[in-house]
């Protein structure tokens, strides 16, 4: 495991936010430097105004059982896990280009987003580490 982990959070469906929470929190707990770059429809999960994240249609039928299982196993919501990762030093950046495309400004994002940056800034931060694309 390298000393740095970069996560490109691209998907906007609810199921994909679970590994974002789990892996960012686990990596931060290991003392790994974590940078999350949010782009595409994933940006919808980070706005101040809460938006419902859909499940992928092929799994829509399984979503209620999954929600129940998460609750029964006391798995915290993804944003709580990401908050804990941030307590341990993780940083979250929103993609400037996709934010503009979706009409989102820095003030539209909630407290999880540290800054709105360009792709080059993120790539520079990610250099020399491991990168995950979710």
């Amino acid at each position, binding site marked *: *495991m390298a000393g740095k982990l970069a996560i490109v959070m691209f998907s906007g469906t609810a199921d994909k936010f679970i590994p974002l929470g*789990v892996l960012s*929190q*686990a990596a*931060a*707990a*290991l*003392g*790994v430097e974590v940078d999350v770059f949010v782009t595409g429809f994933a940006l919808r999960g980070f706005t101040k105004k809460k938006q419902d994240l859909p499940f992928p249609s092929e799994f829509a039928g399984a979503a209620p059982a999954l929600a129940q299982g998460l609750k029964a*196993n*006391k*798995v*915290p919501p993804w944003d709580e*896990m990401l908050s*804990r990762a941030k*307590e*341990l030093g993780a940083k979250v950046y929103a993609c400037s280009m996709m934010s503009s495309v979706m009409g989102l400004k820095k003030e539209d994002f909630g407290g999880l987003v540290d800054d709105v940056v360009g792709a080059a800034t993120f790539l520079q931060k990610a250099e020399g580490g491991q990168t995950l694309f979710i």
Partner: protein
Amino acid sequence: MPPEAETHRRIDSRGEACPGPITDLALAYRRAKDGDVLELWATDPGVRSDVRAWAERTGSELLSVEDRDGAIVSVLRVRRRRP
């Protein structure tokens, strides 16, 4: 001046899903000093391998992992890496 006594801290992460226990351990580690003993109580089965990975990562010493009272109890000694 004698060195500050080493402490033994118990962390209760029972009922917390992965990666809750390892996060609680990391937060306790932040406040710990070299030689301190951390005793992590957890019920998520992932903790067995996670404490090994965490100990390896931080240079801490994993003293034991055992089942006790329906929980998995891991005992670690904090080893601060010298700069």
